[in-house]
């Protein structure tokens, strides 16, 4: 196995809401290897972005409590003072943001914004910096690099801006990249281009990538391994083929059957009833997904669900997966029995 780049151990991110701390990321452990893309999927509010921001230390320190460990190249980022963290952010650890329309400073040229991390992490002459910026612009598929270098963000389209955001993340050759829903804010056609670009870049660089998304299509296309997140916890971790061919956890199965497919146009799309509980109201004892599958008997759940390794590299939380079925399946079963 390739060398481990990032190792998250029992990370807990809690936010202060009216004096009490509530965990949005609740005991997450994950390791990412060199040249590996780990996708983290889950619906809105499950804690995936909170996880991403915890790794790179972008939460407001006053209202956030971080516990556990985030080890990058053997160094725990969580107890580093900001000054030391700033030596790592932008250098070893790059971040690609969700919305390219707001992620760039409207008052600075593209060239300046891509060169900025080099000011702090690399000792380069300004001519060398410019050369590197133009090279990066070429790498992210921008043809007219010399013109774009001098332009401002408002002069570029969304897809172009996302390419610039990616170029910024790559500027200092990071060993680890975090992409927080890099295609969510883009048009479908542009999404495909950006995913192609990310794949291409992953081939060239050998950094590890954490890809946060709620788009399972993106996961299938890019990821090596997948971690499914629900209510602040990983409920299933598996390599990408296993996850799509043999999904076990009820949440994973529900997610997969909510993908519209053009083969089954007569079938109704599966809908997961209910919403992710808010972190204040979440019942932290017992299986967190249980309220959304009320037709499964309570005995099927573990009292204190943990991740079980059901086959090498395939982890599932709780025991409810053994007895899980979709509600419509049961109706069919009953019909079958009565007729």
């Amino acid at each position: 196995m390739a060398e481990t780049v990032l190792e998250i151990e029992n990370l807990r991110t809690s936010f202060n809401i009216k004096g009490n701390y509530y965990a949005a990321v609740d005991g997450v452990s994950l390791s990412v290897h060199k040249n590996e893309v780990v996708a983290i999927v889950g619906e809105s509010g499950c804690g995936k972005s909170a996880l991403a921001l915890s790794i790179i230390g972008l939460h407001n320190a006053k209202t956030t409590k971080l516990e556990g460990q985030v080890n990058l190249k053997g160094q725990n980022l969580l107890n580093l003072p900001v000054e030391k963290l700033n030596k790592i952010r932008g250098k070893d650890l790059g971040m690609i943001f969700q919305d390219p329309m707001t992620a760039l400073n409207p008052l600075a040229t593209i060239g300046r914004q891509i060169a900025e991390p080099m000011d702090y992490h690399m000792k380069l002459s300004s001519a060398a910096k410019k050369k590197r910026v133009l090279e990066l612009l070429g790498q992210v598929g921008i043809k007219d690099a010399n013109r774009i270098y001098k332009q401002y963000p408002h002069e570029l389209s969304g897809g172009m801006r996302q390419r610039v955001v990616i170029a910024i993340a790559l500027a200092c050759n990071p060993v680890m990249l975090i992409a927080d829903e890099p295609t969510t804010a883009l048009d479908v056609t542009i999404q495909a281009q950006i995913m192609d670009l990310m794949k291409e870049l992953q081939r060239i660089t050998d950094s590890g990538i954490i890809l946060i998304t709620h788009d399972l299509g993106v996961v299938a296309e890019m990821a090596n391994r997948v971690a499914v997140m629900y209510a602040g916890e990983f409920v299933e971790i598996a390599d990408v083929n296993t996850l799509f061919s043999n999904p076990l956890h009820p949440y994973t199965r529900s997610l997969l059957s909510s993908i519209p497919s053009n083969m089954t146009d007569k079938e109704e799309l599966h809908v997961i009833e209910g919403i992710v509980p808010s972190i204040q109201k979440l019942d932290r004892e017992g299986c967190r997904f249980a309220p959304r599958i009320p037709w499964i008997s309570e005995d099927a759940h573990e009292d204190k669900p943990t991740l079980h390794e059901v086959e090498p590299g395939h982890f599932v939380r709780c025991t409810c997966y053994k007895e899980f079925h979709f509600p419509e399946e049961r109706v069919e079963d009953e019909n079958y029995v009565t007729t």
Partner: protein
Amino acid sequence: MVKFIFRRLLVMIPQLFLLSLIIFILAKQMPGDAVTGAFMGNPNVTPEQVEKIREQYGLNDPWYVQYGAWVGKAVQGDLGSSYTHKQPVTSLLAGRVTNTVTLSLFILIVSYIIAIPLGIIAGRWTDSWSDKLIVTYNYFAFATPLFVFSLLMLFFFGFVLGWFPTGNSVDVRLEVGTWDFYLSKLKHLVLPGMSGALLATAGTIQYLRNDIIDTKLKDFVKTARAKGVPEGKVYTRHILRNSMLPIAAFLGYEITGLISGSIFLEMIFSYPGLGQLFIQSITGRDFTVTTAIVMISGTAVIVGTMLSDIILSAIDPRIRIE
């Protein structure tokens, strides 16, 4: 950029024309004229004499003839002569314009010197004790009327402590152009200037503070932090530049406020500036002086907004007109 400034200057020409037209018409609508102002209630002047004087000064001509004559002379630097002061308006205004401009610039500069650091402190460390202190100061400054505050300043620093002179713009015994002369000017400037600046600064502090609080949550600030930019540089390079935009836009408005505010200040500190003369000219129906002063303040507003536009376009590429 040069092209933009040139265009922006061209726009000022129709603005100034409209301004002069409106001012002239409005001034003509004022009840009475210079003659009634000077001779009203004087039993020795007969109505025939009044009529003769009116005819002599051209006050019976239609308004557009009078306007034409006024503008024609104004562009040559002749604003007519004051009926009450019996001297050319330009020479009457010269010294006073300098005084008012000095006072306004003093207030503007001092208020920015105070506002920028305080706004940054309050915005960067929101809810800290220093922020609370600054915001409390702002509330007081917003709520205190200029004339009350000026009187208090005058009483304490001018009268009780006697640190600064209580009136005039300079010690008249000093010879013009000497070092002592300018020092005395500055000393006379401090009380009215600080009174104006300490109140005017509140608006700028509040604007800057609120904009920093707003900007520091923006996504591009996260991008900057993710690049490993040190916290201080995040503020100077990313947040402040963006937060300066509303301050620059506010400048034109600020200048308008200073001119109207200076009327109070000049009256209270008996500082010989435009404000003082303005009040005198209105009560004396001194038409030429009134129009000249309104024209000057109007021009100052137009120049102020032009400065705002130029500064804004220098900072913000999005509003640069190519």
